[in-house]
């Protein structure tokens, strides 16, 4: 037994799902999150692997007592902040307007 949805809502969901706007929203979302997720996962795993198996490289001094390990770790912070910021900008520009329009259509359709 799954959650119940009214026939009107069901029809509205089906119609929106078939619309080109929804296809644009979905591909816009996936185009951002799939490569980004693969990218930051590999970047993070590279860091873990280097910490484990590349001690010489990680121990190289950069400036004073600051070594590659510390810089690499801080870069993980910076990329995390940067990806979050870019996603915020991207989603507000490329996704939110389409989602709002579709949501509005849905409300109109089921309240008719």
């Amino acid at each position, binding site marked *: *037994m*799954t*959650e119940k*949805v009214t026939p009107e*809502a*069901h029809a*509205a*969901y*089906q119609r*929106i*799902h078939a619309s080109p706007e*929804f296809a644009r*929203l*979905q591909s816009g*979302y996936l185009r*951002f*999150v799939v490569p*980004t*997720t693969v990218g*930051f*996962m590999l970047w*993070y*795993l590279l*860091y*873990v*692997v280097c*910490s*484990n*198996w590349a*001690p010489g490289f*990680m*121990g190289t001094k950069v*400036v*004073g*007592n*600051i*070594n590659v*390990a*510390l810089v690499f*770790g*801080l870069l*993980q*912070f910076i990329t*995390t*902040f940067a*990806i*979050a*910021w870019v*996603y*915020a900008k991207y*989603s507000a520009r490329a*996704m*939110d307007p*389409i*989602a709002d329009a*579709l*949501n509005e259509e*849905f*409300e109109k359709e*089921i309240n008719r």
Partner: protein
Amino acid sequence: MSALLTSGDVLSAASDTNDHQALTATLFVLVVLLTVGITFWASRNTKTAADYYAGGRSFSGVQNGFAIGGDYMSAASFLGISGAIALSGYDGFLYSIGFLVAWLVALLLVAELLRNSGRFTMADQLAYRMRQKPVRTAAATSTIVVSIFYLLAQMVGAGALVSLLLGVDSQTAKNLTIVAVGILMIFYVVFGGMKGTTWVQIVKAVLLMFGTLLISILVLAKFGFNVSDLLGTAAENSGKGSAFLEPGLKYGATTTSKIDFLSLGIALVLGTAGLPHILVRFYTVPTARQARQSVLWAIGIIGTFYLLTLVLGFGAAALVKGDAKDRIVESGGNLASPLLAEAVGGGPGTTGGAVLLALISAVAFATILAVVAGLTLTSASSVAHDLYANVWNKQADVTGAQEVKVARIAAFVIGGVAIALAIPGQSLNVAFLVALAFAVAASANLPALLYNLFWKRFNTRGAVWSIYGGLISSVGLVIFSPIVSGKGLDPTGKNLSLLPTSIDISWFPLENPGIVSIPLGFFLGWLGTVTSKERTSEERFPELEVRSLTGAGSEK
């Protein structure tokens, strides 16, 4: 509460030589009074089921971002990571990075979609297109197991910590602390529901950020804000030289320990977005956009906090000396931040030192309270909303009021169970339970959530197999790991495993099961799906896609 006051009296009476312990006890009582006040206020504004489970979905992104920070930055992060850095140098920092990067999974793949497609619990989102009873039972089981593991680690930690901070090392004081923390968390959850819990977490996050920032600035000021000098002094005073600033001191010993660390790293980065007490926080905001804002704020707060723990950890290694340094080692690192606060305030015996030590101790106490409240609420909600209302109940419809009543009873039971397990659990080393909770979340919950959102064919059997498979394999592997048996004694004669040394059932070499159990969870989700003939879940998938991406028809 009376238990806490009594234990406070006992403790402060026993330590008349030290001013800071009286001051610490006073600040603890203030934290308790403040949070109890918040809970009373919140209880007057909690009427419907949506109020109780989701704070009426009325929090803003900023508020929820702070609450997520308050829910996530546990004592394990605050005291554990700075302590690990103080003792093992750079390797302590590795945790912070996994804990932070993990938030990108939550931001990009989970937060908004979950907000749009669920109602109150993690299971709601699965139940949208699956057969309710099996998936809700599985999701509730995993929710409760993860939360209880996490809860136990926090409560045992609280017992040890409070007695250390108040300077009384008696078993009675520790037991009383555990009982008091348990009673407080039951109180917050029963009366305050999600509103009370959220405000407790917000207040805690503000206190924690303030305390951490203050101590960090004081530490950096000692080195003229020259980070290189701080690191150099930390390396020198650690007695380990430049190795202290490089990875490998803790995890680099053998190939097994390196693979163990890789396994931990994977569990940390994938576990966060499957932790039930984090997932339910996304339901407390009105829209998916606010859920996104929450995570953005959380990333900013949590990231800043972990950067500061680096300063605290290396600061403790550099600045805490003599007896205080021995106490950090004895506490396994947990006292690094409080004793660092004492050192930068002027050192032991000074007023400044006593004030800052008391302040940081109170922050640590608030941290524990906020986290255990969130965990108890999440389990109680799952019992009431998933099990009682949708699995056990034979009647057609359960009203919101009935559900909330059951949730309150469940909070009592879960709190009671947690107290009952935490008291005997003190004699065991339960710190591994936090890492295990992340491993279970990543192995059992995340595969089901992601498949459900992104794979049309996914169905009931796939969900059930991935949840139980991930849960049983991660817990099972730990049972046969060196954590439970077979590690032997350390040089001082202390047993390193949970079971007596005469019993050795270990065959799995790693302490962190994630590297095996996470792929297994994903594999079983796939296998269960393709061996099942169920097709109804596919029919509902377009609806779920539209709803999760646009928010059309989502819970208001």
